[in-house]
């Protein structure tokens, strides 16, 4: 955890670990687990109140890593791991829902884009680019928790509309409308707080 190895221990270290994991190296897997399992657990816990399910999803994620490590293509290892974990969480939610409910009529199967949020990328980019500024945080605090969790699932977690709907247990149409409303409210809140950087283009 020393600050001096920051340069050579970027995602390069993770990529090497993943290559070793693909060869079946348990030591590399242990190192990868120790580096990433903690924050994955915390991040999953923020999105799922059931600790047993979180544990299950975490384990399945790393079992998938054993299998899929060879498929890692040099992208950020953390982001790659989160993609797996998020999809596993969505799957687990869906399985749980299926087991708990006799027959839930699914909302209309619309062939939406892979990332439902892709319709307004500029707004997301602005949100993410602005995350280091205090007023974006304030603006996010102002919108309702329902809108915020939709925004989190689609923007931060990179889930598709359908996956977000499964994760949150709401219809796809609701995800779309809430995402739209969240963006509008965010834009308005930001415009109120600080009209100069965003107000002009909105």
């Amino acid at each position, binding site marked *: *955890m020393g600050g001096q190895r*920051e*340069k050579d*221990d*970027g*995602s390069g*270290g*993770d990529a090497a670990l993943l290559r070793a994991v*693909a*060869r*079946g190296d348990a030591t590399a*897997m*242990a190192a990868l*687990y*120790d*580096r990433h*399992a*903690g*924050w994955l*657990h*915390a991040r999953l*816990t*923020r999105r799922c109140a059931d*600790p047993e399910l979180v*544990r299950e999803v*975490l*384990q399945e994620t790393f*079992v*998938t890593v*054993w*299998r*899929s*490590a*060879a*498929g*890692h293509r040099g*992208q*950020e*290892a*953390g*982001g790659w791991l*989160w*993609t*797996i974990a998020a*999809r596993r969480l969505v*799957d687990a939610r*869906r399985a749980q829902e299926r087991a708990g409910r006799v027959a839930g009529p699914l909302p209309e199967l619309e062939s939406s884009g*892979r990332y439902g949020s892709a319709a307004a990328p500029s707004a997301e980019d602005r949100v*993410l680019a602005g*995350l*280091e500024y205090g007023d*974006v*945080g304030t603006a*996010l*605090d102002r919108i309702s928790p329902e809108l915020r969790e939709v925004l*989190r699932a689609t923007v*931060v977690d990179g889930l*598709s509309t359908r*996956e977000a709907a*499964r994760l949150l247990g709401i219809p796809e149409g609701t995800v779309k409308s809430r995402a739209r409303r969240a963006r509008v409210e965010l834009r308005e809140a930001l415009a109120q707080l600080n009209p100069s950087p965003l107000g002009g283009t909105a």
Partner: protein
Amino acid sequence: MTHRDSHPWHVPDDQVTRYAEGTLPEPDAWSLEKHVEGCTRCASRVSAAVGGTAAGAVLAAVRAAVLEPAPAAAVAAKPVPGPAVRTPAPEAAVAARPAAGAVGRRPVVSRTARLLWAAGPAVRGAWLPAVLGVAVAAAALSYGAGFPGARALLLAIAPVVPVAGVALSYGPHADPLHEVTAATPGGGLRLALIRTVAVLAVSLPLLTLTGLLLPASGAPAAAAWLLPGLALALASLALASFVGCRAAAGVTGGGWLCAVLTPVAVAPGDAAAPRLAEQLSRCLDGVAAQGAWAAAAVLSATLLAARRPAYDRPLRP
């Protein structure tokens, strides 16, 4: 948020602590989460902090579970779920290819093992011990008790063994999901034949070798039962398309036993063994007898091919 070689910003220590405790407010947590995806150093810091909380025990347990099984076991045990998995699917396909050396080859072994395991409930149930029992009993009878007609007796019983295996391994009684199985593309006659092959692969070598170990004492050669065994197994399968596996096996196996054992039953006690050997010679020895069995096997196979559609529906019990 694309990859950058060096992040100008890193997660402050107080945020790491509060995130690990689960008390960090949403906007700050989002920024931390996005940053950790690309910054190994902060990922390690957050993970270490989470390990120090109550979640540490869970993390240790999952760590043991992830590291304990060999990778190949994890590969074999984990089917890729349906269409919900979008990104990992092609990666899994890549990983499944045996490019990764030893790790990639091992699932093949386990797949074969699973195929053998699925070869028939009978193989792993009562039938295999029964075959072993017949072989051991024949050997024990011959060497232990000095019974001279052991090979003849073994030859008389041997053709029934594969028939019984076939009867036990396919049909509604052998498989609770038989109706579903019969309707699948891999089910039906194909599955029945795979299981028959599995049955024959065990019983043919075992019984023939046992026969070779026994003294001849007038009985036909140890391999003489192979063609009758095949013919009876095929006849059972063909007949099963009409009346079901168990009834078919009863007819063919019972018919054989009647044909071979009837003269013995009417003979006086002492002469039983020679009479059995004599009767078996009549049934098995010589080109004519073996030719007749071969013809019967071909005939049964033809009938079976013609009756193939019957196997696409569930058989009678």
